């Protein structure tokens, strides 16, 4: 395209890696050194039978570190941030998309983030926007319940946005203790005594709700139904703004499902 040799060529091989970000960086390492772009990159949970050669990529911290350092150096710090973010997104075959994005980046340098119309760039930027969009929605859609002074909420987002919610909620509720449980990704954001941590969490059981909690839920639901203007009733418009998949965790909408 720009007279530069491509770093690697498509090959009939499938990579298998452990699903970690480091593991993904090792897939990049392997691509560059074998000069082969795989047909697909799978994790043990997310694998499909293929007829092609499968190659297991072992996660090696030194290799991962090398690749990580190369991104800000050869492309830009913003590109590293983009890759880290999109790795947490729900983009289908995100590993392959990110690999192609990086290969193009190594050729083109920092201007890659401006190549908005390029087929290897546009899907990555779109995935990032989708993640940021879902994050923004959830800033509003998270519903806490008060369990004896601790606030707790469950969410079921498509993207793994928990790390991106932390700063907002810790600033807003700095004097509270709270927990946000991501049921999709089996993880929790926990804020206690002014400390934040992100921990894997298979399951969670909430205690019974108090009378006061029930009362506030009722008041909120009543408010919600009261402010809708009948003459403007428009359920279609509501759905476009607040897709049904968010309803299950929302006090005022769950029972309308």
């Amino acid at each position, binding site marked *: 395209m720009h007279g530069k040799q491509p770093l690697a060529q498509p090959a009939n091989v499938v990579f298998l890696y452990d699903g970690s970000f480091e593991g993904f960086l090792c897939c990049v390492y392997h691509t560059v050194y074998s000069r082969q772009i795989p047909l697909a990159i799978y994790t043990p949970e997310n694998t499909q039978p293929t007829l092609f050669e499968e190659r297991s990529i072992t996660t090696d911290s030194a290799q991962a570190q090398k690749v990580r350092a190369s991104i800000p150096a050869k492309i830009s710090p913003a590109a590293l941030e983009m890759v880290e973010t999109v790795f947490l997104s729900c983009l289908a075959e995100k590993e392959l998309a990110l690999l192609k994005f990086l290969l193009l980046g190594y050729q083109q340098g920092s201007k890659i983030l401006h190549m908005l119309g390029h087929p290897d760039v546009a899907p990555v930027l779109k995935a990032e926007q989708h993640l940021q969009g879902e994050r923004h929605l959830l800033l509003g859609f998270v519903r806490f319940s008060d369990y004896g002074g601790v606030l707790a909420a469950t969410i079921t987002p498509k993207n793994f946005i928990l790390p991106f919610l932390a700063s907002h909620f810790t600033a807003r509720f700095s004097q509270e203790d709270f927990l946000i449980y991501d049921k999709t990704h089996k993880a929790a954001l926990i804020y206690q005594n002014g400390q934040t941590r992100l921990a894997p969490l298979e399951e969670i059981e909430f205690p019974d709700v108090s009378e006061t909690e029930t009362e506030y839920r009722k008041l909120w639901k*009543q408010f919600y139904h009261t402010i809708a203007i009948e003459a403007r009733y428009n359920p279609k418009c509501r759905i476009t703004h607040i897709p049904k998949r968010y309803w299950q965790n929302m006090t005022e909408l769950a029972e309308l499902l």
Partner: protein
Amino acid sequence: MDMMQKLTILADSAKYDAACTSSGGDRAGGVGLGSTLAPGCCHTFSADGRCVSLLKVLMTNDCIYDCKYCVNRRSSEVPRTTFTPEELAELTIQFYRRNYIEGLFLSSGVLQTPDYTMERMIEVLELLRYRHNFWGYIHAKTIPGSSPELVHRLGLLADRLSVNIELPSEDSLKQLAPSKTRQAILKPMGLIAGGLQQNKQELALYRNTPKFAVAGQATQMIIGATPETDFHIIRLAQGLYNRYELKRVFYSAYIPVVEDTLLPSVDTKPPLLREHRLYQADFLMRQYHFNADEILSEETPNFNPYLDPKCNWAIHNMHRFPVDVNRASQAELLRVPGVGPKSAQRIVAARRTGRLGMAELKRIGVVLKRAQYFIITADNPTGPKVGKETTIRALIDPKVYAAGVEQLSLFGPQGPGGLALPQAQDVKNATEAAEEAVLCMASNL
């Protein structure tokens, strides 16, 4: 009366207010409870599809005035109630902690006197800010006729202040809200604008100056209860933006709540499509640098129901097109139907890395369905070659079909350029009406 009943009454009587945004503030949070987000944040959407961001209630629905269009007017027979400041502050805090809301939108009927009412509102805000240490968003509506000193105090506590202009002209006010004069409405607006200005200077001089309504002021007016044209309304809005440093003007389609000979009958449908056109025009003025005179004129004083105002402008200014996406300025790109502020910016960034064709534009997010008739691209250097009818047909606002003939018939009989557009009663359905409108517009360009 218990809390549930109070909340029901005081939310119900506040629901016709259009404003519910929580935008414009940007307070990081840290001490106490709460923070604000510059772009605002919707916490849910009600069954009418509107964003719910704030706990929007009246402090009281009691009122000494008798504005004809209002459910709370003195002569209306509805149950009356008033929140105590403590109740309302506690409710706000408990809703906020559960992340139901972004803050409070407090407005009120007039209890005893405007000043008395304002003092009670100030009490609520002081409780929130100083006892509960609450730093979430507060939008307060000033009471017409209250003293400047109280407006100032309210402004120091709230993120946004608003004064409702209520109706788009002095005549309409005289008829429907005799206790409110244009003067009484504009005066506090001027005071707030003055407060904002002065505060900016003080903030520059002294770091610890308390901030006055950081998110600025807003207003709203009722559309469709009175005979003003769309041109009159958007010119008024433009004037307000310029003179009073307004952040937002809200338009609220009139929903008949009372029978009165001076008002549209109670079975009138709210003019939602017209309200939508007003918001589009408003957006063009705020974000696209359009002037009210470019959007409408004395000769064409009302919106084209079939086309959004930007498309309508484009087909009447065909001599400005096509524009070359690889060379045109950002301002020129912004005028292309299907190109929004974001895609205009992206085009300018992306073309530095290579020339853009249709495929690239599509990936950038340009709506080619509309834009293709107005642009020159790398792979189409001569520009579009289609007839006017095809262009207009592609631009017809899909909302027209959703709105149906009922909404179309709410527009005046006059089409663009004073032409008679087909009226709802002449056609079977919105699709047919739209097709006739296409032919009619094309033949008159």
